[in-house]
């Protein structure tokens, strides 16, 4: 196994801070600052895909993991960052587990999407667990291989399972499901309830692979807990009213929150802000990740929204530039935030001193300290 620039003592430190943060007892933000050194192209003799579904299904798991090792070895972790592997099979691979077609391509650019495998009337659509599904077996195989290789040295993510309506849309088509919400809402209720139960089953089966071997859990975005954590989502919610969100999405989120120790919600785009009050009403939802969306101003330009999230009693994760994090701590205080720092350019934070200097500045400017 290659060297990871993160010791057991580093893990102890990050665990202590992160669990205090979950408990609301950390008087500063969590700052995830991971910096990867430039890697000479010759280190990657074979293509490195973002989506693991782009590797042939019969490629040995170890060969895939080997390809990522130069990346892991070249990454340095500052602040509360931790080594983390996101097993990325696209947004909502649970649809693939349940029999939807998985389209995974890397040319002209990498993407994964899901589509109905057959035309079925909504009333005849039943989604059931299939232990022999090729995508489910592949995700379990790769999750196991990662845990065996890295054990407690690296957080192995639960793959991106998807949101309940997003999964259902993979079987109906987005437009058809939009019609279904008004035409046959009872059938949508039936199917979303079934998806929630299946989602929990997939989560728990992956959990039984990950947690005994690794330190805590993570998911498709860098958030970690020593219990069960996950970043829940509903991209479909962008298109629907709060009344529909309350009927079709909220029960699913509530059930998942009740099952998890530390749950988050991925609030993606301004069209989802209308659901914020309902999200804040979920007592066991611990935090909200704000993603402004393509073409929108960065998170630090949404201070009233961030304030609303914090005032609603939720933690808040944002992907920000160093300057963005400084703006937020100056205006709102850093407490309760998780900043995933996105260096503005590849030349930012190339040495530890610069990274540490930034963390020091952030602490000095934090109005909550």
């Amino acid at each position, binding site marked *: 196994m290659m060297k990871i620039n993160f010791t057991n003592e580093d893990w102890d430190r990050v665990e202590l801070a992160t669990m205090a943060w979950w408990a609301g007892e950390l008087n500063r933000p969590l700052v995830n600052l991971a910096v990867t050194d430039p890697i000479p192209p010759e280190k990657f003799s074979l293509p490195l895909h973002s989506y693991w579904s782009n590797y042939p299904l019969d490629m040995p798991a170890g060969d895939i993991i080997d390809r990522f090792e130069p990346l892991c070895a070249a990454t340095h972790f500052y602040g509360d960052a931790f080594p983390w592997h996101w097993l990325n099979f696209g947004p909502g691979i649970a649809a693939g587990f349940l029999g939807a077609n998985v389209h995974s391509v890397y040319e002209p650019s990498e993407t994964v999407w899901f589509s109905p495998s057959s035309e079925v009337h909504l009333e005849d659509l039943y989604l059931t667990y299939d232990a022999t599904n090729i995508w489910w077996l592949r995700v379990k195989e790769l999750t196991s291989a990662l845990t065996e290789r890295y054990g407690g040295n690296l957080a192995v993510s639960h793959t991106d399972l998807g949101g309940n309506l997003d999964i259902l849309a993979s079987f109906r088509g987005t*437009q058809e499901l939009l*019609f279904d919400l008004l035409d046959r809402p009872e059938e949508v209720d039936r199917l979303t309830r079934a998806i929630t139960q299946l989602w929990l089953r997939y989560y728990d089966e992956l959990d039984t692979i990950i947690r005994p071997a690794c330190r805590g859990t993570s998911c498709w975005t860098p958030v970690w807990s020593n219990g069960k954590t996950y970043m829940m989502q509903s991209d479909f919610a962008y298109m629907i009213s709060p009344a529909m969100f309350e009927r079709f999405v909220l029960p699913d989120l509530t059930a998942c929150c009740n099952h998890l120790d530390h749950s988050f919600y991925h609030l993606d785009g301004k069209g989802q802000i209308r659901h914020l009050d309902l999200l804040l009403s979920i007592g066991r939802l611990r935090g909200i990740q704000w993603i402004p969306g*393509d073409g929108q101003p960065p998170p630090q330009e949404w201070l009233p929204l961030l304030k609303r999230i914090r005032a609603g009693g939720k933690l808040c994760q944002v992907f920000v530039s160093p300057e963005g994090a400084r703006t937020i701590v100056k205006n709102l205080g850093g407490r309760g935030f998780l900043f995933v720092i996105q260096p503005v350019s590849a030349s930012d934070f190339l040495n530890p001193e610069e990274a540490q200097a930034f963390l020091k500045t952030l602490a000095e400017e934090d109005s909550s300290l």
Partner: protein
Amino acid sequence: MNEILKNIYQAILEGDMDAAQTEVRAAVDAGITGGEILNTALIPAMGQVGCLFEKEEYFVPEMLTAARAMKAGLEIVKPLLANSGLEPVGKVAIGTVKGDLHDIGKNLVGMMLEGAGFAIIDLGIDVAPEKFVEAIKSGANIIGLSALLTTTMPNMETTIRAIEAAGLRGNAKIIIGGAPVTAEYARQIGADGFAPDASQAANLATSLLSQ
């Protein structure tokens, strides 16, 4: 407004496709002309749907079902319009640009434009610039370009350049839209207009043709 036309208007607002068809048939049987059904009930109803969408009283599902009801009514009226020689207010070729597979926003815009009296050529998703060029050659006088991703937005500009290169820029107005798209971006790439949502796209197309 005539009671039957009121019923058509209401059926569309409620997204009731069966009622829309029934009432349009009743209107035809009562001797109301296709033009009057279109201009007094169908187009105003979709206009109102657009207003409700902008006010966040309607959302995408409500808008889609209203458009479906309007389309069902329009299918009955279309032969009457053809017989009476009433032309569409314009011909719009619409598509999601090359590399982009998203279609809901594009479909909504198409439906709202149809509801505003335009003829629609839906070129689909992942549409190459040449297809838009061909559409102009076939008589489209408005081109609607959709993109949901910052990575595919540049293909809006590529499409406009292809239309210019074909010497057809003066033959059609070009409007663009999609989540990451802005009015500033529209100006930058030389589009004629930008609409932030489907309802405003219909208003924009109408105003561009009246210039």
